[in-house]
């Protein structure tokens, strides 16, 4: 009997202990978070009042280890740590595709990074919900005169919504290039193609030498820039904007908007054998290496590529590279022969609803990241083209990088790459379904267009 009582008491004691552990666990966690957030906001307020209380900032960039920009951002953060010991910055560096996914998920969950690298099409979605700050008041604030000095009206307009909000602080400008190996072209007496017909005519000549004419990271779906170039050359700027920005969002199958012509041109490229066998199983890094080894003659993408080519083949290889604009379509009267893919499509946002002092610290951090002091050295090393106005030392820069910077600064008009302007669902339908489907031969032109049309209609129905 006694033993039974003891057992009962012990049982109750154990259950009570378990329950208290469970609930106190929850309680502690809540308290911790309250303390933590209280301390962060407290710190922010104190900091605003002039005290150097700690401020934690989470920064996300696409500058991963090994890239030219990674070392620079790490050095900047190190300097920042010394100059502002109260500001603790955690840097998450992710490949751009993963970063976009993480951005979306964190935004939806309400836990975005305080400061992040971002592409225009994503920033456009975030600012609709006021998830990121509007930079217009910051630019007009006399405390921050630098932004207007560094960036032209054109640069700022690129990141401005219809209602006048500025989504991001511009940082990286870009321009497309059909890169070619000058040594190879000189050796075989080829000329870089100016028109699409010349491009098609060049393909068999290159293949005769056992070289792949064009290469890209098919496994990574690197078709967004090419899609934009094909569409702009086929249909021109107005039709491009109508399709991607919404006036004719569901007009992808309508020939007057030019996507049909664009996909027909892409089919001609595939049929001519522009891509090597297995391009869809090749990552961008593998494609870079193939280009660097002289197994491919041309490569089409944005202005960051020289940095990747340097990683793949060293400076010696980069010095052999030159660029030309994407070939023009002589048989497409509506096509724009001058427009370049690129522009100021990348910048940095600051999350909304931060305490004042933290917000100010984030703006200051962004100011450092988008400054000429930070960006020009990276540009000189071939990392990317800086979106702002700044002098640079041409002698430090490879010939192809000089070409890119000059082309960027001299371009009359731009269109963004498809992944920077089209709704993500449409962009994915183009670069992960339609174009790869045509390369594998599973889709003809009509089926490829139908896939994009369906994605656009689904997106429009959801709006």
């Amino acid at each position, binding site marked *: 009997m006694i033993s039974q009582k003891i057992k009962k008491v012990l049982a109750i004691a154990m259950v009570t202990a378990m329950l208290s552990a*469970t609930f106190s666990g929850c309680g502690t966690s809540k308290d911790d978070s309250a303390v933590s957030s209280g301390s962060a906001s407290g710190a922010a307020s104190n900091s605003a009042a002039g005290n150097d209380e700690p401020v934690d900032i989470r920064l996300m960039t696409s500058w991963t280890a090994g890239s030219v920009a990674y070392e620079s951002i790490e050095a900047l953060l190190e300097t920042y740590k010394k100059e502002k010991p109260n500001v603790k910055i955690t840097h998450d560096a992710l490949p751009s595709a993963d970063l976009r996914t993480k951005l979306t998920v964190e935004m939806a969950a309400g836990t975005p990074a305080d400061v992040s690298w971002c592409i225009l099409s994503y920033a456009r979605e975030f600012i609709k919900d006021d998830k990121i700050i509007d930079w217009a008041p910051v630019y007009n604030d006399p405390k921050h005169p630098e932004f207007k000095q560094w960036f032209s009206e054109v640069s700022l307009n690129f990141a401005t919504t219809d209602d006048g909000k500025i989504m991001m602080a511009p940082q990286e400008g870009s321009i497309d290039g059909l890169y070619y190996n000058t040594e190879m072209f000189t050796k075989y007496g080829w000329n870089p193609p100016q028109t699409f017909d010349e491009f098609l005519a060049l393909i068999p000549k290159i293949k005769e030498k056992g070289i792949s004419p064009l290469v890209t990271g098919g496994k990574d779906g690197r078709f967004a820039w090419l899609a934009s170039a094909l569409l702009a050359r086929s249909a021109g700027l107005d039709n491009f904007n109508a399709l991607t920005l919404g006036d004719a969002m569901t007009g992808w199958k309508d020939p007057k908007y030019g996507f049909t012509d664009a996909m027909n041109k892409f089919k001609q490229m595939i049929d001519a054998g522009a891509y090597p066998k297995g391009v869809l199983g090749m990552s961008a890094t593998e494609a870079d*290496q193939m280009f660097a080894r002289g197994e491919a003659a041309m490569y089409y993408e944005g202005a960051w590529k020289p940095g990747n080519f340097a990683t793949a083949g060293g400076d010696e290889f980069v010095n052999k590279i030159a660029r030309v604009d994407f070939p023009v379509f002589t048989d497409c009267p509506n096509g724009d022969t001058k427009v370049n893919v690129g522009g100021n499509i990348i910048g940095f946002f600051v999350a909304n609803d931060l305490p004042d002092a933290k917000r100010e610290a984030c703006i200051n951090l962004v100011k450092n990241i988008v400054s000429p002091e930070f960006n020009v050295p990276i540009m000189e090393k071939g990392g990317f083209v800086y979106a702002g106005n700044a002098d640079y030392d041409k002698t430090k820069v490879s010939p192809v990088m000089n070409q890119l910077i000059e082309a960027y600064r001299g371009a009359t008009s731009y269109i963004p790459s498809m992944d920077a302007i089209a709704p993500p669902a449409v962009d994915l339908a183009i670069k992960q379904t339609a174009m790869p489907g045509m390369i594998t031969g*599973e889709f003809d032109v009509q089926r490829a267009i139908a896939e994009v049309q369906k994605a656009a209609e689904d997106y429009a129905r959801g709006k």
Partner: protein
Amino acid sequence: MNITKKNIWVILAFLVPGSLIYIYLVLYPIGQSVVLSTFKWDTLASSRFVGLDNYRSVFASQLFWKSMGNSLVFMVSTTLLQVIFGFTLGYMVYLQMRGYRFYKVVFFVPTVLPSVAVGFIWNYIYSPGMGLLKPFMAAIGQAENYIPPLSSPALALIAVIIAQTWNSCGVQVILFNSGFMNMPHEVIESATIDGASGIKMIYHMVIPLSWDIIKMVIILQTVGALRSFDLVYVMTGGGPNHSTELLPLHLFVNSFQNFNIGYGNVIAIIIFVMAMLLTMGMKKIMYKESIY
């Protein structure tokens, strides 16, 4: 019975913590998923009730059916291959041939590697740019027959299945081996004395005696294959042209890249229902008595 009634509060007190945790971590997310599957997100912050629209979209989507087909092929193939290889290699280890301890370790090594690492290893093997397969085929005079496996819709899924089998087979080897080690020695000895050997021994003695292990491996593999994600994501990202897109990857792309959370939740529910049906089916098989 009386004791139970007297101690009803004690029993309840024991049940409550576990039940609460189960409700919060298991039942609530399932219910939440059902609710979310009836919403459509206009922006990141605003959503609206759309009833069964997401279900209609899913069942009308060709990509969904392609993913479903891929998942079924993946599930059946990886299960079959792992049972066959796991059984064979496990049996060879059981026979304790020369160097069996070494092979046991070798067979198990891929299992301890993270899926992401396995993905990179096989990517490297298959790569047309710098891989091992291309020079190997050239070395055996088959260079002209080389097709980069991950770039071909016909071969990519097979290539992923091979990688998955390589990655997971070690566990099956160990499981089968431990099952064989538990077979009653006297029965095996009697069978040997009666003249059973080779295929006859395997067919009439080893398979029946290890039937429980075979069932367990099939169940683990089938349900595991249904939620495979990481290896496929690293190796192909679902490509080329969705030919390796399994249901979890289809969910991921739609939920987190297209930001179609409602659609993604429908896929999650479908995976859940399939897993439940499979588990129930398997359970039925499990309840059947062993052959011996």
